[in-house]
């Protein structure tokens, strides 16, 4: 049981680092954005995992049911807004990439740097 619980955190660590790898090792700008998407998803997962309580249920009161254990609602509030903020900022990032493509004709980091040095 302890191991199964730890597995949640390990998946968080692995996902975080897969996203990090895409950001640092890939040169394509859209791929970097996808890496950021993975990174932020990993953080979402960590928050929600920490909010879970054994034997708990979702923090919505039910009529006629008393003495329920509820999972922690606070991380859920933070992540709920973060998902929508995430897609908006992702759109902003994609907008910047589109403009870069129009100005430089490429979305590969090394090609953009070559053009800049000329």
């Amino acid at each position, binding site marked *: 049981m302890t191991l199964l619980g730890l597995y949640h955190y390990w998946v968080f660590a692995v996902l975080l680092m897969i996203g990090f790898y895409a950001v640092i090792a890939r040169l394509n700008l859209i791929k970097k954005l996808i890496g950021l998407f993975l990174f932020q998803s990993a953080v979402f997962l960590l928050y929600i995992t920490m909010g879970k309580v054994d034997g708990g*249920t*979702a923090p*919505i009161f*039910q009529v006629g049911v008393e003495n329920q254990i509820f999972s922690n609602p606070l991380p859920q509030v933070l992540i709920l807004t973060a998902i929508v903020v995430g897609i908006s900022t992702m759109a902003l990032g994609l907008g910047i990439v589109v403009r870069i493509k129009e100005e430089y004709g490429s979305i590969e980091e090394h090609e953009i740097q070559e053009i800049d040095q000329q």
Partner: protein
Amino acid sequence: MYDVVTIATLATMALALVRALLGPSVYDRVLAVNMFGTKTVLLLSVIAFLYGRPDFLDLALAYALINFIGVLAVLVFFRSRALRRAANAGMED
């Protein structure tokens, strides 16, 4: 009782994921995503009852309604690409 269905759905999700990884064409991957979407609707409905909280069915309803927008976007994407290529070929002639 719900466990059997959940296991079947999860196994099918794994199979669809394998199809998405193998490809070979991009359309196979779109097919896999579409399958995955339907399986998620079923999984969410079953989990709602497994947890004894039927009010979570709203989630499955949301997926059932908007999941196919992604596939339509793919169709629009390929259609505009085909038009673009035709237009480019026409300019070169």
